[in-house]
Every structure is written in C-alpha cells, then in structure tokens.
C-alpha cells in the first residue's frame, strides 16, 4: 500500500488525537498570536459606549450550556462594559435548559466584582416559555410577561422595574444567543418597536447575521469565540476567549493541512486507480 493510499485510509482516531494536541498544547504554552478587531465588533462596543450614564440595557442569555465556550465570554465582556459605564442591566433568557442558571451565576459574579446591587443596578427576569409571546408581550408590559423575577420577587418590589415598564425605557438590547432567537429579536423587537440592538452569536450562526448588520437592523455583531475575544480586547479584560484563540488558530491550521492532504490523497489514489485500469 502506497503512502497516499495509507493517508486516505487513516484511522480517524489519529485525526482526533492530532486535533486534541493542537488544542491542548497552546493552552499549556501560550503563543499570544495577534488578533484583529472587526468593524462589527467595534460598532457594537461603540454603540454601548455612546449610551448616557444610568441608561437601561437588556442583556439576554439565550444560550445552552453546550455553547458557553463561545457565548459566556461575550456576556462577561459585555457586563464589564455595562457595569463599568454604570448602566442598569436587565437580563432574561428564553432557554429553559441551563439558561437561567448561567444567567444567575454570571450576573452574581459580575455584580459582586463591580459592587452592584440587585434590584437597583440590575434585575434578572429569568426564563419564560414561548419566546414569541415573550418578545411581543414585553413591548406592552414586561410585568405582564414576567410578574416576578428569577427569584420569585414581584417586579413591583424591584426599584429598577419601577421605571422600566416596556421596551420604551430600554436604550439598547444586547442579545447573546446560540440559536435562531436572534431572528425573532430582529423581526419582532427591532422591526416593531424600533429598538437598537446588537448580538453575540456562535460561529455556526454568524454568517447568517452579517446581513442584518449590513441592512442596519443590528448595530454590531460578535461571531463565535473570535468575536468574544475581540470584545474582551475592546473592554480590556482578556479572559477565556482570548486564551482559547491560540488553540483555535492551531486547530484551524491543522484542519487546513488535513483538507489539503485529504484532497491530494484522493487525487493521487484516483490517478493510480485510473492508470491501473
């Protein structure tokens, strides 16, 4: 059996091992590869920077635990910026599995870091089923959709919610999502209530949502771990996404190598088969 024949029949477990090593090695020995910032990430950052002090923003945790590597760093970086700017933050999730606990943990950690008070500086609305009704209903009354917050406290008892009745009092919506809910935020909340918004989404979803930025339906966009790393750079809080980018680059180089080797092996073995008749 020739070399290219062996390459084309390589046990896939060797490929898994190579990818694992490409991911693990840069975590143990950081290479600090250079990373650029895309205009879409900068636009999102600048839109939030431009908000006046004490403006109310909504930050969504519309993602499952399976994608936290890409999405949670976005939420954390966004909260660094929001709390540093003294914005009031309302959070919510449309994800039943893990969404409420990720939102709860992230908000608690970040609020503690910036000495923010629950109910005054931020409110966690928690999860509510049927996202279409939730997004639409909050346009007329948030309280009708969320009679109480994540912890069972009636919204009427939370000082921040005394002034926030619906989208009219919210200056900006920052969606962090790993699913098609972003479409609904755009088509329902942006289109019908004219709310400015930006999104951080998983890499798999990102190409689809660039068209919303181009059509000015979204202010900015963060795509995958790269987008999260860009936002960490913008808020000057390097963390998990930036740490992971060396691994990302190494794994990509390896996959490019595999794609080239796979194609060369295919053509070489085909040529040999043809010449053998």
């Amino acid at each position: 059996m020739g070399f290219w024949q062996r390459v084309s029949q390589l046990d896939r477990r060797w490929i898994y091992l190579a990818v694992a090593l490409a991911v693990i090695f840069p975590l143990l020995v950081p290479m600090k590869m250079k990373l650029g910032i895309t205009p879409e990430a900068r636009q999102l950052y600048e839109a939030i920077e431009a908000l006046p002090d004490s403006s109310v923003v909504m930050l969504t945790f519309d993602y499952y635990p399976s994608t936290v590597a890409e999405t949670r760093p976005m939420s954390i970086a966004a909260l660094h910026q929001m709390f540093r700017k003294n914005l009031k933050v309302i959070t919510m999730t449309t994800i039943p599995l893990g969404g409420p606990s990720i939102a709860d943990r992230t908000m608690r950690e970040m609020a503690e870091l910036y000495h923010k008070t629950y109910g005054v500086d931020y409110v966690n609305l928690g999860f509510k089923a049927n996202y279409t009704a939730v997004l639409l209903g909050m346009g007329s009354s948030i309280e009708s959709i969320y009679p109480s917050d994540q912890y069972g406290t009636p919204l009427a008892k939370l000082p921040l919610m005394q002034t926030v009745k619906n989208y009219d009092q919210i200056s900006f919506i920052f969606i962090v999502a790993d699913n098609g809910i972003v479409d609904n935020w755009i088509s329902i909340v942006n289109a019908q209530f004219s709310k400015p918004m930006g999104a951080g989404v998983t890499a798999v979803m990102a190409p689809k949502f660039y068209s919303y930025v181009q059509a000015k339906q979204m202010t900015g966009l963060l795509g995958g771990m790269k987008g999260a790393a860009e936002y960490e750079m913008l808020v000057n809080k390097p963390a998990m996404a930036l740490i992971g980018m060396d691994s990302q680059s190494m794994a990509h180089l390896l996959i490019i190598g595999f794609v080239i080797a796979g194609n060369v092996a295919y053509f070489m073995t085909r040529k040999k088969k043809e010449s053998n008749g």
Partner: protein
Amino acid sequence: MEILGLWLAGFFTLSLFSFLYKDNPFYGLAEHVFAGLSAGYEVGLVYHSVILQQLVDPISQHWVNATAGDHPGFHIMKIGFLLFAGALGVLMFTRFFPKASWISRYPLAFVMGNTAGIYLMSELHGRLIPQIAGTFVNLLNPLNLIIFFGVLTTLIYFYFSKEHTGLLGGTARVGIWFIMIAFGAHFGYTVMGRISLLIGQVQFILIDWLKLIKPG
C-alpha cells in the same frame, strides 16, 4: 458540594469524549443521565414558570381582587380568559387517546392561527422589506457592487420558470459562485464553532477541574 459537581462534570466530559475512541458503557451512562436530567429539569421549570406563574398565580390574584370588590367584572373576565387558555392547553393531552385525539386540533388551530398572524407581519416588516432595502446601496463603492450583484445573480439562479441558457444561464452560473463562496464561509465558521466547543471543554478540564493552568 461544588467540588463534587466539578468532579461529576469532569467525569461526564471524559465519558462523552471516550466515544471518540469507541462506544462504551461510560458514554452510554453519560448520554442517559443527560437525557433524564434534561427532561426532569425542563418539566419542573415549565411547571413553575408557566403553569404556576402564568396560570395559577394570575387566577388567584384576579380572584382575590374580584372578591375584594375591586372591579369584579374585569377580574372575572380575566379569569375566564385564563381558564379558556388553560382548557385549550389541557385539550392537547387528548392526543394520548386515539378516539378523542381529534379534539387536540382545536388548540393547535389557535396556535397556528396566532403564529401565522404574528409571523406574517414580523417576517414582512422585520426581514423581507429591510433586507431588500439593504440592497439599495451606493453602487460606486466596489463592496456594495459585490452585494448588489451577489443578490441579483443568486436570485436569478433560483428562478426556475425559464431554462438556464444564454444570458440567464450565464448569470445563474455567477450566482452559483456566490452561493459556493457563502457555503465556504459557513463551513469555515462551522469548523470554528466546533473547535470552540472542544476548546471550551478542554479549558474546563485543564483550568476549572484539574487547575493545571491559571487563566490570565
């Protein structure tokens, strides 16, 4: 308790990764635990956030207000609406009984009617019109020119009422190139997404669980 959770998460992560070598009982255990936990968690969550918060609690609140003499007619009407919606929900369960399953079509008809009404407007105003408007761009900018021709040629590729020959065929072929480039971008981003998930779990193992690396 937190340490136990961390070790359990670590154990299940490795159990799931073990499938990459070959199927084994650890992978099966992790898969079944995940399926069972997810189902139980979701039932509990929906019971609290929907059944209690959006049906039982509002009915009790309106009942208290009605019996206290505070606009009783309004509150009774609200209770009526809630009971009607609740009854529609209960009717969905008739699907479990073959002879009565036809009744479940009524609540489904409500859901479909509502959904169609909401999405008709939102898709039109929220997606179709703004996306078309997004192609009305200054064509002196080369990047805008790419957007314009990309949309135009791709749409022509999906025009099937005339055979793709001559000018139409040539334009459609350019459309295929744009589609292929879009597929390439999607593929690249998908690879990035999948690798990110792996990086996240490796970070969990090395940083959060085994504490072999200190972040920052």
